């Protein structure tokens, strides 16, 4: 996934005071970050990672883009982003339950599905692909997974459009 877009999505989440409140955090704590393969998760946290991404390449003038360029190769990218919400059940302060994890998930929905282009200006067509909740016995973690699909255009030699 394009790094600028990924960064905008993370910023969108970390800048929301309601989401931070639900996580027992404040704006500036930045508990939402790109998932790291081998580092341990410290809850509460929201990690994001890109799933398989499809792309259609075509040529010509695209009048949809802000600065049309004739003859540039354009790629319409269909990205899927996986949002993992991690909440520990091992303490009594909020968030600590499956309900708390669901409340966080609902706020993520609001942030990523409503008025998203205003914050991640190069994306469009956001939709929720699916969601689930699991409880990990061995770690005592609530784990909500939400996947969103969205579209963005890239233009050869110009990057995002």
């Amino acid at each position, binding site marked *: 996934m394009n790094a600028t877009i990924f960064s905008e999505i993370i910023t969108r989440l970390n800048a929301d005071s309601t989401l931070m409140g639900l996580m027992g955090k404040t704006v500036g704590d930045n508990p939402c970050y790109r*998932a790291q393969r081998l580092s341990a998760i410290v809850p509460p946290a929201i990690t994001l990672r890109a*799933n*398989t991404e*499809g792309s259609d390449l075509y040529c010509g003038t695209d009048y949809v883009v802000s600065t049309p360029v004739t003859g540039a190769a354009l790629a319409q990218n269909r990205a899927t982003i996986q949002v993992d919400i991690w909440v520990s059940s091992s303490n009594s302060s909020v968030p600590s339950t499956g309900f708390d994890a669901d409340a966080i998930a609902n706020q993520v929905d609001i942030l990523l599905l409503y008025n998203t282009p205003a914050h991640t200006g190069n994306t469009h067509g956001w939709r929720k692909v699916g969601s689930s909740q*699991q409880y990990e016995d061995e770690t005592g973690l609530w784990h909500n997974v939400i996947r969103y699909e969205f579209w963005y255009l890239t233009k050869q030699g110009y990057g995002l459009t």
Partner: protein
Amino acid sequence: MVTLLTKEELIQKLNNLSANQIKHVEEKMRIAVMVVEAEAKKNATPGHSPYEDMFFPTKWAFAEAHGLGYSGAPYMDDQNPAREPPHMRDTMYGVVETEGLSVHGIVGTPKEYALRVHEGTSKMWGRPFLTDAGAAKMPKVIEILSEAVIENLQEQSE
């Protein structure tokens, strides 16, 4: 050729169109489900999986210790004692269910650990073999289901 219909005949044609649509969609949905199921199975097959290069330390260590080739696909080697036969890939299924005017195509697996494989855990990255299969085959599914509408229209126009 132009066929002239009375008002009653036209109403009958339109009623038939509606009544037969479900039958046509069910028929095509069975094909669509097979297409997605096959893709999901491919996603869980070593050598063909999009997760081939994903690294899982425990799996890697087992492959190394037993001189086996490594694959990040959600498929456990037959020699691995942790494997619970049958393979998850071999339990994947597809069914079509109809409720009133809604036709649902369902692809899944009854394996208890499938959700953890698909969604991931705090110690293992997810490999969304079903979600990816649906996304990859969506254009084909739309094409197949569109045929149901076209075939029904053709049938009723005869």
